[in-house]
């Protein structure tokens, strides 16, 4: 498992639609798989993703078994000013993995 990553344009104009890309390395084990000896592999899933802009939630995802390992998420956001973006991946165990980005304005 590693630190999640976030990618967004460095700057935007007010009203622009900006694309936010995030990813995290995670096995996303569903608990349904077996190892080569036939033993069940313990469940270990990220079940939630949340994105906040200036503290307000702008996007979230609830992840089920069909979400892939090393999940990626891309979503849009309207630039309404300088924005401090915080994203967090939340594991079923409660562990949280946070990545932050900043959108500045250009004229």
């Amino acid at each position, binding site marked *: 498992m590693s630190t999640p990553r976030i990618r967004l344009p460095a700057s935007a104009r007010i009203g622009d639609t900006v694309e936010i890309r995030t990813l995290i390395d995670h096995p996303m084990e569903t608990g349904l798989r077996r190892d080569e000896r036939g033993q069940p592999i313990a469940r270990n899933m990220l079940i939630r993703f949340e994105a906040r802009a200036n503290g307000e939630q702008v996007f979230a995802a609830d992840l089920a078994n069909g979400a*892939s390992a090393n999940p990626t998420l891309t979503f*849009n956001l309207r630039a309404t000013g300088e924005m401090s973006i915080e994203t967090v991946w939340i594991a079923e165990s409660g562990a949280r993995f946070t990545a932050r980005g900043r959108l500045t304005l250009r004229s």
Partner: protein
Amino acid sequence: MNGQNKGGLSRRAFSGALLTLVAAPQAFAALPSEVEAAIRAAVGHAPVRDGGVVLRVPELAENGAQVPILVDVDSETGPGRHVARIHLFATRNPTPGIASFTLGPASARPLVATRIRLAEGQQVLAYVVWSDGVVMRTAAEVKVSVGGCAT
């Protein structure tokens, strides 16, 4: 219903039923019951409209463990009316749920891209729920060369 029409469907109910049959593509006609249950749990029993949603997936996925998927609702949203939720389901995975996304007025153009697991070739279903309760859906068939293990 007042019970006076036990002999059969009223003309109105009959034409309604016929329209439903015609409008529903075969794609959605026979979903496995656990898929149907997962959809109902997510979107309730609101009437569902076909189309209005772009679902982009590869026709043939080499690796079922990492299948790129993109859902795009071809519409700008803002104050007043926006896409509230997008739900993805798989028809032939061990469990039907893939992911559910929560969007809002800040989402601008409602678009979500991610990667999913498909255990075998099957249909992927996207349901889009608007803030005013309108539900739209679309489906895409994906062939899978190597299944994404037991998902």
